């Protein structure tokens, strides 16, 4: 850092300061890792070490299989206990990164004779990788702006609620490792860009491979990096380092992506990857142009340009025409459904109701931005401005990253997660610059005029920084870390001074002492508010395992453990080969905890199969029995929240069942279930609604609870209170009536004369089939 020769004692003093700074940085990073790990442990403390939600149960089941049977069985696994009778090729349809990571950790620990169970490893994988992700953020921001900004960004990422929501202890989902892989890949890309070393380019490709293994969001990387390369070329920042950073990544990255079975040949055939190939060609053209420009005289170069442009345009035109024809021949233009719904947010609701029905795929509301990234939401613009002075390749990259992630987070709430690291990086940069200015001002004011004003380069953004920082309450980490960081920065400044003194002194911005002190205190207070909010969000909002519910009442804490109660009942009281039908939300949990074969599950890969189950739930009892019988179903499971007021039950989801079923079987019409466009289940409900299977299975014998059959979720008494089930029998209802399991009654052996005539009358109105074995698909 001190570029000039200094006398001997000053050199050792500088070396001592550097050493002290490095040790302090390492200590702070260790503390950040511990912080990131511990803030995610609330659910383990409040509830227990259990896997949350729905998707993690599938990942847990796959990890169990991997740990029991080994990796070859895992690659070749065909799962016949789900999507009956179709089955599912697990090896080819799952992103293996998460399960392989957890499996490796389990195997390593067990071979060291630390006997952790697979469940414990799965539960704690996410907090461990969030600590790694904070360290990766430190490395990335250090490459962009320096280690002070790096530490600030790392601490912000350790606590940001948006990331906590998907990586609590127990949330064993792809994003737990994918966010770490994302940030690490970006760090290696920036490092390659800054150093031009092919070694880092190789590491970059390997990190990208890990990202492809982990999450479908890898397409974000393979589109963002080409966009950045294009941006650099267009703004005249092409350099050989850019070529080294990008070209090997494309070739090696495409190959590595094609290695993962889930992606396979999609790595070269789908539109999500075309941007990288296009920019690959463009960068080669640009590199060639620069090379020829270097070896020719300017006059000859002009001649070359005119000659080449005329020929090149023709060739380009032909190639582009072929490409457009190829892409237009596929109905979606080569994009997958999920990617298309990202580009055109209205696409899913028009064409693919399943994608539209997932609550995570809805656009976020404005308050959710403040809930999820809190004070970072208004530190980000300050960071963007700080990135522009000076603008380097790496800072243009993070600006592009934040802009793209803000757009995508506006489309889908789930992608707020991709915004979080970008927001933390930007805010870390902004905070670090603000602190630089304030502490520099204090030092200048206290030290007198002999010390030159350093930070000459970042004073242009200083007024905007402290104007915005001072007025609104902003800040960041814990006081202890902040003061030690301030101390480290103070020690770096004297080293800056000799080099600055030798340049022509720029009139630097120095604030009055009182302003700086007050602004620093306000920033600390802002940091305190951020920490309080993050801890509150982690403890109250994002730590619910959703398989166990609690509620506070006057007589203490109520625990609703109905889900596990019913899965345990299923696993103890049914045969191993019995098939259970339910809505697709509960498929993963049923296979993992109850160990029974299900018809549809959360993977939702087969819309027709889900539509079949949806049609069955929307049909009258007899038709539903026919459908379920044809699928060999023995038990039907419904979730009902009317007794305790649990709002995410099947009756609230019922309209989606109707829509999805109606999308494939046209005799199910949504209008039949609505009275005047309103969805109701009380006495004003339509007869179709009151006769459908979902209504009957949810409200059977409900009137026995309080005599009036008052549904606490819909806040009304139900329409049909006293009825009997003809084709199903109730076998289990959980303690709070949340889960109800019914068994299909076997078909009657004899049909009496009068019933035969009635039977033929009902068949002619419903299913058109003459044979005794009814085929519901006609």
């Amino acid at each position: 850092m001190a570029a000039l020769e200094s006398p001997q004692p000053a050199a050792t003093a500088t070396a001592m300061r550097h050493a002290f700074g490095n040790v302090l940085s390492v200590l702070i990073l260790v503390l950040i890792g511990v912080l990131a790990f511990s803030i995610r442990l609330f659910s383990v403390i409040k509830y227990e070490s259990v896997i949350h939600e729905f998707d993690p149960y599938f990942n847990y089941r796959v990890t169990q299989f991997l740990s029991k049977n080994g990796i070859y069985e895992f690659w070749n696994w065909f799962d016949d206990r789900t999507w009956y009778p179709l089955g599912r090729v697990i090896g080819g349809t799952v992103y293996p990164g998460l399960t392989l990571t957890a499996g490796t950790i389990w195997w390593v620990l067990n071979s060291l004779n630390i006997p952790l169970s697979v469940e414990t490893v799965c539960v704690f994988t996410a907090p461990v990788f969030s600590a790694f992700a904070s360290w990766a953020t430190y490395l990335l921001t250090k490459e962009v702006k320096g280690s002070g900004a790096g530490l600030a960004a790392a601490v912000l990422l350790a606590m940001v609620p948006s990331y906590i929501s998907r990586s609590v202890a127990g949330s064993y989902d792809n994003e737990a490792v994918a966010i770490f892989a994302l940030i690490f890949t970006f760090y290696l890309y920036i490092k390659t860009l800054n150093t031009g070393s092919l070694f880092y380019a190789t590491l970059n490709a390997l990190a990208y491979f890990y990202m492809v293994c982990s999450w479908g969001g890898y397409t974000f990387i393979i589109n963002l990096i080409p966009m950045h390369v294009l941006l650099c070329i267009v703004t005249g920042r092409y350099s050989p380092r850019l070529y080294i950073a990008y070209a090997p990544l494309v070739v090696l990255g495409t190959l590595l992506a094609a290695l993962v079975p889930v992606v396979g040949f999609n790595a070269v055939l789908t539109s999500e990857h075309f941007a990288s190939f296009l920019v690959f060609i463009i960068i080669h053209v640009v590199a060639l142009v620069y090379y020829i420009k270097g070896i020719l005289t300017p006059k000859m170069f002009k001649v070359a340009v005119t000659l080449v442009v005329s020929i090149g345009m023709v060739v380009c035109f032909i190639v582009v025409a072929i490409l457009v024809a190829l892409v237009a021949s596929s109905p979606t233009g080569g994009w997958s459904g999920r990617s298309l719904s990202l580009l055109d947010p209205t696409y899913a609701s028009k064409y693919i109701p399943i994608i539209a029905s997932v609550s995570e795929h809805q656009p976020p509301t404005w308050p959710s931005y403040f809930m999820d990234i809190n004070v970072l939401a208004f530190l980000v613009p300050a960071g963007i401005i700080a990135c522009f002075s000076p603008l380097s390749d790496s800072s243009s990259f993070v600006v592009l990253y934040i802009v793209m992630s803000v757009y995508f987070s506006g489309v889908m709430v789930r992608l707020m997660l991709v915004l979080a690291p970008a927001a933390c990086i930007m805010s870390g940069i902004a905070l670090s610059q603000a602190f630089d200015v304030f502490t520099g001002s204090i030092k200048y004011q206290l030290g007198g005029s002999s010390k030159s004003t350093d930070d000459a380069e970042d004073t242009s953004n200083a007024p905007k920084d402290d104007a915005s920082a001072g007025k609104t309450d902003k800040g960041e980490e814990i006081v202890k870390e902040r003061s030690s960081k301030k101390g480290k920065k103070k020690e770096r400044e004297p080293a800056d001074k000799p080099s600055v003194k030798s340049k022509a002194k720029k009139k630097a911005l120095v604030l009055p002492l009182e302003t700086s002190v007050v602004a620093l205190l306000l920033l600390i207070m802002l940091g305190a508010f951020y920490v309080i909010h993050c801890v509150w969000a982690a403890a109250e909002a994002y730590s619910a395992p959703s398989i166990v519910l609690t509620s506070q009442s006057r007589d203490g804490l109520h625990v609703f453990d109905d889900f596990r109660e019913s899965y345990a009942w299923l696993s103890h009281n049914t045969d191993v080969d019995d098939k259970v039908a339910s809505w697709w939300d509960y498929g993963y949990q049923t296979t993992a905890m109850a160990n029974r074969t299900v018809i549809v599950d959360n993977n939702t890969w087969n819309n027709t199969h889900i539509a079949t189950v949806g049609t069955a739930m929307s049909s009258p009892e007899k038709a539903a029995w026919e459908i379920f019988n044809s699928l060999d179903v023995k038990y039907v499971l419904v979730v009902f929240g009317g007794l305790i007021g649990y709002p995410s039950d099947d009756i609230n989801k019922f309209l989606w069942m109707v829509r999805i079923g109606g999308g494939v079987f046209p005799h199910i019409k949504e209008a039949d279930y609505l009275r005047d466009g309103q969805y109701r289940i009380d006495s004003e409900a339509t007869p179709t609604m009151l006769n459908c299977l979902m209504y009957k299975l949810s409200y059977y014998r409900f009137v026995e609870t309080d005599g009036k059959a008052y549904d606490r979720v819909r806040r009304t008494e139900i329409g049909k209170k006293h009825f009997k089930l003809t084709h199903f029998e109730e076998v289990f209802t959980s303690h709070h009536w949340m889960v109800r399991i019914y068994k299909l009654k076997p078909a009657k052996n004899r049909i009496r004369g009068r019933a035969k005539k009635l039977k033929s009358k009902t068949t002619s109105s419903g299913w058109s089939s003459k044979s005794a074995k009814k085929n519901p698909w006609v």
Partner: protein
Amino acid sequence: MVKSTTKDAQDLFHSLRSAYVATPTNLKIIDLYVCFAVFTALIQVAYMALVGSFPFNSFLSGVLSCIGTAVLAVCLRIQVNKENKEFKDLAPERAFADFVLCNLVLHLVIINFLG
């Protein structure tokens, strides 16, 4: 018009040639290697056009190995070229070692993907 264009083309060709002759021998060897790799890739594409693209993974791995090693050789050339100011403190041995490492990773992946 055509005559001046052909004359321009000839002038261009001559000046390109004379400028290229001046490059050092080690860079010319790397350029030859790049041309060989690209030529091999083109032959593979022509073969695929004749015979059909099954098995696709073998075709992909063959073509991408050629293109990959060409790209890596270009990176090596960039790093070893004495006229590049940005890389003047990078030892050519280090550049070559990086080149070998990256090629190793590339061909490991190729062998795995070849099928």
